[in-house]
Every structure is written in C-alpha cells, then in structure tokens.
C-alpha cells in the first residue's frame, strides 16, 4: 500500500495562515490503514488545529469528512456540493489523492497534510517498510524476490558494491545489504546463474509522467464519465 506520515504541525499551521473556514478531507484507503489520514486522523488534526488557532486568538472553522478513496472520481463526487462553502480544502490523502482533489476543484486552494513516502509493507501496527519504487520494469524474478532498486541504497543492478559489510549495507549496520540477501537467496535456490551475467544499463521508464491503460480498455474523456 501507499504509506504517508502527517506533516509537522508547524508546517500545517503555516499553510493554513489566513484561512478561516476549511474542509479537511480524509481518505479511507491506504493512508487510513497506515494511520496517517483516515477518519480518526482527520478528527485528531482538526481538534489540534482548533485548539492551536484559538490560543492564537485566530479561530478557524474546520470540518472533516472522510471519503472511501481520493484517487477515484466516483468518491470525489460526494464533495461537489460541499466544497464551495470553504475558503480552502486540506487533504490527508497521498500525493495522488491531493492532486486529484485539486484537479476536481480548481477554484479552491488545496493543501497536503501528509508527506507520502512510498509503497510499503505492514511489518506490524504503525511500522511500515518500503519495498517498491514503481520503476515500471520489475526484476524481482531475477533477484530472488528482493528489490535492488528499493532495498539497495545505491539502486545497483550488479551488486553488491565494495561497501557491503558482513551482510549490512555500508550506510548503516542496521540496514541489510540487499545484494547480500539476493546472493544468499539465489544461492539457496540454486539460481546464482541469474546474476552471473552483466545486467546492462537500465532504460529508465519512470522519467516522464506515466499513463497506464490495461489491455481491452482505452482513454476516455473525463467529461463523459460520472
């Protein structure tokens, strides 16, 4: 899932300077699961903002609503009738949600309340670890299911580098060396031949905004949709 973390409170206060009537929109999907921007987090932030602004003698009227997914027009439609009553909208969704919201309501300033950090797995409640950089050309089949782009600090395709340190990465003893793990796993599976050949320079596919259309589908004008 996509994981995110709430922005520092001072930064949030700064962004909302001068706005007196604001709608906070939570997202019920990824950011709710990773405890950053679901219904509960919307309520908490609103309470904090309400108190902080009162203390400054500059009260803010802030309402909250959490929709199923901000990256989906179907759910954004719920907001159509509401937003015009506000001076600004803040979003607790990932960067995708924030942009989709801003795109739907171009007349209103939209502010992000979280910093989106990546595609991560849930290790335990409140603990997430990045596992994918969405490079658009997955090599996990070759590397024993360990991503060199994400897990190697240098994103090497022909690792490990000379800094590999008894199973740890050179950057930190607590960070496992991805290429050490790749070697170990492939060795155990008898698949070392996977990495014996040079992996040629990568033709990066993530250097321009990407659009994806699944087979059998096509691009349609958003106007023709809901």
């Amino acid at each position, binding site marked *: 899932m996509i994981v995110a973390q709430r922005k520092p409170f001072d930064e949030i206060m700064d962004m909302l300077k001068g706005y007196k009537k604001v709608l906070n929109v939570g997202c019920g999907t990824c950011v709710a699961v990773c405890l950053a921007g679901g219904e509960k987090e919307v309520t908490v932030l609103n309470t904090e903002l309400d108190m902080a602004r009162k203390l400054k003698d500059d009260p803010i009227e802030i309402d909250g609503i959490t929709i199923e997914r901000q990256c989906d027009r179907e759910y954004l439609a719920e907001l159509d009738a509401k937003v015009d009553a506000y001076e600004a909208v803040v979003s607790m969704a990932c960067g995708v949600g924030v942009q989709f919201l801003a795109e739907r309501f171009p007349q209103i300033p939209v502010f992000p309340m979280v910093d989106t950090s990546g595609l991560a797995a849930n290790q335990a409640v409140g603990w997430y670890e990045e596992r994918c950089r969405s490079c658009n050309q997955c090599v996990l089949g070759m590397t024993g299911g360990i991503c060199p782009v994400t897990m190697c600090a*240098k994103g090497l395709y*022909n*690792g*490990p580098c*000379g800094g*590999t340190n008894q199973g740890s990465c050179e950057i930190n003893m607590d960070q496992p060396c991805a290429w*050490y793990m790749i070697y170990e796993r492939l060795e155990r599976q008898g698949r070392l031949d996977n990495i014996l050949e040079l*992996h040629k320079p*990568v033709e990066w596919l993530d250097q321009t905004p990407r659009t994806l259309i699944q087979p059998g589908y096509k691009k349609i004008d958003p106007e023709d949709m809901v």
Partner: protein
Amino acid sequence: MKSGSNLEKVLKAGHFAFTGELGPPRGTDAEEVRKKAAFLKGNVDSVNITDNQTAMVRMASWAASLLIMQEGLEPNYQMVCRDRNRLAMQADILGAYALGIRNMLCLSGDHQQFGDHPSAKGVFDIDSMQLIYMVKKMRDESKFLGGGDIEEPPQMFIGAAANPFAEPFEWRVHRLAKKINAGVDFIQTQCIYNMDKFREWIKRANDMGLTEKVYILAGVTPMKSIGMAKYMKAKVPGMDVPDEIIKRLQGAEKGKVAAEGIKIACEQIEEFKELQGVAGVHLMAIEWEHKVPEIAELAKVLPRPVME
C-alpha cells in the same frame, strides 16, 4: 595496445607495476596538487586521482589529472557513478581523453550519506559494472551507450576496484569475472591486511583463469598509527584488519609505529611480487604522499621502468 598508456605498457611488458594515489584539494590550490605530485614522480607508473572521495566535494578529478600531467605524471582518472548520469559521464570521458587522459578507474562511489552533502541526490544512473561496459563500448565499438557513433573514440585503459574481503566471500571471484566480462583491463583491490584471505582469493581467481584475462594490482595502505588501524577495522565498511596487525603496531617502540606500518606494507609488497596472479601493487598513501619515495625505496620497486 588498447590505450597506449604508460600503465598499460608497463603491465604488458610484464613489469611489476607500482601505482600511487592522490586526493585533489578541497579548494582551488593547484600548488597543493603539484606538491603532492612531486613526491610521486619517478616512483610510480600512474597516479589515481580520486573523484569526490568519501562523497566530499573536491577539485574535479579530470582537472587534478591535468595538473599532474603537466608535472610529467600519468593519471588514472577515477570516476564514480554517484555524481553523474550517463550523459555527463560520457561527456567527461570524451573531454578527459581529449586532454590526454588514458587510464580510467570505474567505481560505484561511497554513498553520499558519508560526505559533506549527505542529503544530495545519489545519481547511480548506471553502476560501476555498467560503467565499465560503457567505456569499453565507447572504445571498442566507437559507440555511445545510446548507440550513436563516436568520431575519434576515447581509447581508455579500463580499470575497476575489487574487494576480496567482503562477504559473501564465495561471490567475490564471480564478481571479478563479471567485471572482466564487462570489459575491465586492470583491477586495483581494496587495501589488503588479511593476507590469508587475499591468498585464497587470488588462488581462486587463478583457478578460474581470471588472472590471465586481467591485471590485478594489490592494494596496499601502510598504517600510520594504531588509531588508524583501529578506525579502519571498526569504521570503514568492507575493510578487513586482522588483530595481528594491530598487535604488531602496538608492539612497536614509541615513535616507531609508523615505521612498523611501512615495514608491514613492504613485507606485503615483497610477497605480492612473488604471488602468482598479482601484476603489481597499488599504493594508497593518502595524505602521506611525502612518504611514497621512502616506501618505494624500501619496497625495492625502484627504478620504475621507462617505457617507449
């Protein structure tokens, strides 16, 4: 001849090569480079010019290379993958060659986190293995990585590093083989202190026939102090410093620790001269350049061969 560099000639003629290293200054002082170069002149076959070593900003490697060329030394131009993408790298290679640089050392580069700009964006567009492949393609096929033709391609003697000590040990020779397949001509190893492990590594490389395909220069860095030995053991990733080395330094008389460090280095060099598969020594006496004449003398590698 691939490049016609002095280093290539020395190695090809079967001489035991001896190379040095010079770190460019953290400023614009050309005189500092010239001073260091003066200690190396006549004592080494080629001098590695580091590229933003330990991720600290320094004078560009090609510029310091040029300065030592003006002093009559041959540079081994280091290039790391951390700071440039493939466009900048190829442009620099063309420029370096045009200026007379004939040796290159292809490295990944220490992670930017270690340096003075820890939150810089690490480029790593290509890795060291792919850099070797790219330089070879430029040289042997007269092609840019993107496939376009190069007029007057750069004829570089291509070097790379190898760390015989990093785990998994079994993988090390395979990684060396991979670099050879990518197109490397010579290898300079990580500083060697664990001789047993190094002997085992070179034996495996010999057994696989690798040392017939590539020149291996054994990396040597004399210990200046006990503190340095301890620091390298504990803090430098990928460094293998056995306790015996530290004990030997501790056993030296007061004021004689550095001399003992040099003695250890010279003993190593003596052994490397005899060791099958080792084509020379790369001496990394960083910030100790003034000691190079003495070390070269004691290690009996002088005079350096003069090539046609």
